[in-house]
């Protein structure tokens, strides 16, 4: 499988996963690009991989985590520099606000926004990517039962939110 085939099969799904998890178009594009560069760099032997889709999402998830770590470090440094300069208390969030946020509140991102990250991830992988709990467990490095229970809690929260229950 070459890079074009890889993108044609999984590219859009990967982008959707990232867009839902990150909530930012630019960040999603960056992480997707980093993931493809990583896959290109290591010249993967696809014939040896039993489940290429789960493998690709595992690589994607690792890249996503790397991106988050970089962002957190960057935000901390920015906050520290800002506090030193201004000698004022840190802002609640240094992450730039996405101009599309207002529009997104009525979409999937809005519905998923209140969920804890691990539940949100499992719901995205199950509902929008169609993975089984076993595959999700492999991707997230948790047991199948843990993946299923995260999904259950997540779905309960979404249900109560959509149906207006407390």
């Amino acid at each position: 499988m070459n890079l074009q085939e890889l993108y044609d099969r999984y590219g859009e799904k990967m982008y959707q996963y990232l867009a839902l998890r990150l909530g930012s178009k630019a960040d999603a594009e960056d992480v997707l690009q980093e993931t493809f560069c990583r896959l290109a760099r290591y010249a993967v032997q696809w014939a040896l991989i039993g489940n290429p889709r789960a493998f690709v999402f595992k690589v994607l998830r690792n890249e996503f985590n790397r991106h988050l770590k970089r962002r957190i470090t960057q935000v901390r440094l920015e906050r520290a520099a800002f506090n030193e300069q201004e000698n004022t208390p840190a802002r609640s969030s240094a992450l730039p606000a996405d101009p599309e946020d207002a529009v997104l509140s009525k979409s999937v991102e809005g519905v998923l926004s209140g969920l804890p990250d691990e539940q949100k991830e499992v719901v995205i992988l199950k509902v929008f990517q169609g993975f089984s709990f076993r595959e999700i467990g492999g991707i997230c490095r948790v047991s199948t039962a843990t993946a299923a229970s995260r999904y259950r809690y997540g779905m309960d929260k979404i249900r109560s939110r959509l149906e207006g229950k407390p």
Partner: protein
Amino acid sequence: MKKPFEEDELMENRLRSLPLKPVPDGLRERILGAARAERSSRAWTTPRLRAGLAGTAALLAAAVLFSALSDRSHTARLRALMDGHRTVQTETERAWALDAEDLGDSLGPAEFAHEKRMMAYRRTAIAPTAVRFEKKFNLEELNGQGISEDLN
């Protein structure tokens, strides 16, 4: 009353019906371009260098093969010329041949054979004794110092 998994299915369908962010135009080309650039920058050789290396390796292999074949045909030609006899002499054989030339035709075949055996024996038996003698009296060192033979 609906079962839990039916409720989940309904909820999943409801979530799927919500709008997702569209994939930006030109994202495919951008991603693939970056991935290709990454691959080419990480490659340890350029395509031209790889072709050059392959060509050199092929030339070397051809030269080695040609040399081996040429040696083989040369040996076969020599063997045919010598009617199957060996052409290469060992050191001992060469020494014997020179000694035999020195002896000339003065000896008869039986005496000559006896003389050859004696020469071979001397060559193998006497040489180690001479070495031991030289070591014992440290002659090599003395010779190096250019000591006169006239000890008186």
